[in-house]
């Protein structure tokens, strides 16, 4: 498990997605973690120290493991970049049947709705 800074982690995650387009999967795990062993935590508990928790993010494609930590200060920036990354990579999912509706995009919403209905009916017949 390689611990990376958030930005290199996202870069590496991107290449994992690229490597698995033909075959394979990518797993991304989020976990609430103090990044300390149980023994350390117990020690801190008994001495009354405050245990700091962060969000641990791990990713694997089955071959390579990477991980990073984000805390309360930087998780929003990370989650925004992560969301953009996912949007760019999760492209094999099915879209709702809208492919032919681009022409109608400029017209009135009501019109669009009725067109969709009629198109759906045509498609089904």
């Amino acid at each position, binding site marked *: 498990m390689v611990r990376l800074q958030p930005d290199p982690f996202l870069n590496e995650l991107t290449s994992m997605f690229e490597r698995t387009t033909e075959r394979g999967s990518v797993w991304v795990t989020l976990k*609430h973690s103090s990044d300390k062993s149980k023994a350390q935590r117990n020690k801190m508990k008994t001495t009354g120290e405050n245990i700091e928790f962060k969000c641990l993010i791990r990713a694997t494609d089955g071959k390579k493991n990477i991980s990073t930590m984000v805390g309360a200060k930087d998780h929003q920036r990370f*989650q*925004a970049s992560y969301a953009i990354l996912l949007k760019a990579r999760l492209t094999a999912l099915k879209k709702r049947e809208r492919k032919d509706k681009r022409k109608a995009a400029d017209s009135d919403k009501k019109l669009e709705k009725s067109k969709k209905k009629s198109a759906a009916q045509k498609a089904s017949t």
Partner: protein
Amino acid sequence: MVYITSWDDFVERSVQLFRADPEKTRYVMKYRHSEGKLVLKVTDDNECIKFRTDQAQDAKKMEKLNNIFFTLMARGPDADISEVGGKEQMEAQAPKKGRGRKQ
């Protein structure tokens, strides 16, 4: 483990599971590009709840759940997530993307 079919159910139960045991619970996303499949799993090793989909629209919903879990995990299980459900994010991103959309 049976897959949960209702997204809202899945979100509610996964947050419950996390809050019950924050230190053990993990949230896993699995994406298989070749088959266009997405599986979400939340487990504390006792209970396991899963959701699977092949729909792009569910990926958008997942974005909100991601934000909820990032907030819960980075800020602690008592963090307020009522605002996280996408609203905050959308408002933060709107000025960059949609120029003059609101006014």
